[in-house]
């Protein structure tokens, strides 16, 4: 039995060492990638104290909708699109917080929509933050919403294993060889025409109460002396009680029913390339 237990313990020990080495290697590569494969990594690797005229945050309804290069060509303003697909308010707050820690801007725009009432994190949008979980601020934020954060931080390599499709070997290799597509457009990628989902009318009902993460964003911006604006990007044939957003958020603007043209939409929640161009134009005229 002794010899077996010794063998077992040695194997477990070697296995553990392997996990620690891999955790360290993966974390280093994700923190300092040759090519940032997602916007969190891109943001965290930007040179500090860069000055932007504005920054836009939100989910895919920012990522695919607003083109900072187009705005620049019209107004000369230098902005950045930090929309990340599937983000809830929690991930948006993290993004704003880290952005303002390292960069400078005068105006921040936050897209709010049917996700407004959500207080919890999104299991997909949180993934790019996990290589940075040893950063105390980020860890404390994640710990507040995710009861498994402690395992993700302290069990070596655990976070890379459970999210193997997003943080696994393939993604790691891609960070050496495959540049992202959003860097050259300051964070924007157009969405091409998708299915016929846009033909289905939707009815979204929001609860009339404040969201703690958005309130935190307002406080952060106040402390940093940054103007914060909220808006809702266009939907196709969708009713949403945006009066709730108007009551609870400062500087709110509703674009939800701006476009009725079907050929502007890829699906009911996302504009296509043509729609994004029109919306960026409208956005630019409205705010700048």
């Amino acid at each position, binding site marked *: 039995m002794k*010899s*077996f237990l010794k063998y077992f313990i040695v194997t477990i020990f070697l296995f553990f060492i392997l996990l620690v080495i891999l955790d360290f290697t993966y974390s280093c590569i994700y923190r300092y990638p040759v090519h940032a494969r997602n916007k969190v990594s891109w943001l965290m690797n930007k040179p500090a104290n860069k000055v932007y005229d504005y920054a836009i945050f939100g989910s895919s309804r920012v990522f695919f909708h607003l083109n900072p290069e187009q705005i620049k060509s019209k107004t000369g303003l230098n902005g950045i699109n930090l929309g990340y697909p599937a983000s809830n308010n929690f991930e948006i707050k993290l993004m704003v917080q880290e952005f303002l820690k390292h960069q400078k801007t005068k105006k921040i725009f936050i897209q709010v929509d049917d996700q407004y009432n959500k207080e919890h994190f999104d299991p997909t949008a949180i993934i790019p933050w996990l290589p940075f979980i040893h950063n105390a601020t980020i860890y404390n934020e994640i710990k507040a919403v995710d009861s498994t954060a402690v395992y993700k931080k302290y069990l070596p390599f655990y976070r890379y*294993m459970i999210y193997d*499709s997003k943080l*696994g070997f*393939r*993604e790691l290799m891609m960070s050496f060889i495959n540049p992202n597509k959003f860097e050259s457009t300051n964070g924007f990628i157009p969405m091409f025409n998708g299915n016929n989902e846009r033909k289905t009318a939707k009815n979204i009902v929001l609860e009339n109460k404040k969201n703690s993460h958005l309130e935190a964003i307002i406080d952060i911006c106040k402390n940093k002396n940054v103007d914060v604006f909220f808006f809702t990007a266009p939907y196709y044939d969708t009713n949403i009680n945006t009066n709730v957003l108007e009551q609870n958020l400062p500087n709110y603007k509703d674009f939800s029913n701006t476009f009725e043209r079907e050929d502007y939409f890829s699906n009911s929640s996302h504009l296509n390339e043509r729609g994004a161009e029109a919306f960026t134009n409208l956005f630019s005229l409205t705010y700048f």
Partner: protein
Amino acid sequence: MLFNSIDFAVFLPIVFGIYWFIVSKKLKLQNLFIVLASYVFYGWWDWRFLALIAFSTAIDYAVGVALSKQKERTTRKVLLWISIVVNLGFLGFFKYYNFFLDNFVSAFSFFGKNIQANSLNIILPVGISFYTFQTLSYTIDVYKRKLEPTKDFIVFAAFVSFFPQLVAGPIERATNLLPQFYVKRQFNASLAKDGLRQMVWGLFKKIVIADNCAQFANDIFSNYDDYSSSTLWLGAVYFAFQIYGDFSGYSDIAIGTSKLFGFNLKQNFATPYFSRDIAEFWRRWHISLSTWFRDYLYIPLGGSRGKKIIQLRNVFVIFIVSGFWHGANWTFIVWGTLNALFFLPLLLTNKNRKHTNVVAENHTIPTLRETLQMIITFVLTVFAWIFFRAESVEKALLYIKGIFEFSVQLEDRLTLNRYAFELLPLIGILIIIEWFSRQKEHPIKTNAYSTLYMIFILLLIILFGSFSNIQEFIYFQF
């Protein structure tokens, strides 16, 4: 409880510790503890079905004892039939009731008589096909006086419910496993180490090969009408490796776990994709089931003795029943029939026992002839797997039709998604490792480098394992 779950990772060390440190002094305690642990293991899935195992155990135990006391031939036959009817009755009800009902209804409506019959919402108890066959082998062997029945109920209960192989085999023969419960197990360090290594190898096949292949195979089989011929072929190949990795991986973990407790189970897979003909394939794939059917169905029917027509009938019976054992669906029957058809030329030319040794036994590289034989056998097997995997015969035929449209295009979804590039090299690694260890029970057998080898396999599991897409073992549904 899944072998690849956190629950099992906690369960196993606890059971191991109690087994070797607390109850190891007495044989009775060892066996009783195995029964308890096995019932916890099974009850973790659904405790209500423990009653079914307990009932089946009690009936077969009683039949065994009664057979030992009974000399009269007719009474002995009646006792055997009681066991067969009870065991197959449970299996028939839980697994085949709705299938037969639906087919009767369809048959009647085909002849113009519409009858009303309601299907039942039946949950199939996990592992029922496996433990039913295991207990049946016991009563049949006792009836044939090949085995002395056990008088110890706990020993028999441990034999029926032994947790490593309870839910998906290997289907152990009483002649092999039961005697192991009669002697107190002494801890054997080298057997336990070997078990641990075999478990790691099984996990590699399950988590790295099967679960990664599953993602693509599932996608391709679900959306076969969107894909080109080349992708459909790839889907069938992925499924071939998925089911191999899944089931042989399970068997390796089961056998490895048994070794930790001092038991030796039979080898269930012996590198079947290196077979040179279908007959050899079936001697190497799911060996415990193939030999079960051989001994309790094929040979009693006459086997390969007698006229050719009788031999042909026997071959078709064994393959069709084997297909039907897998599930209540016509797809499995077609799969079995196809394998019988592939077997037919070998039987007619008396070549069905031509390849009983391992391929390229005395050399590293196979000859061109052997390579071609292996490729042809693999292609035939893959073709049959399409029926095994498809949801219906109609869908399988449409899938095959798609394959024979001969369009070549590797869709973006396959080439850009994760592990599309990595998966084929991983399958390549599996093939290479298995090729060089084709004469062993598993690749990480004891040698000077076995620890390093195990660390390498662990590294592959960590790096390439599909942890975000853990799949249940396919054979649980049978």
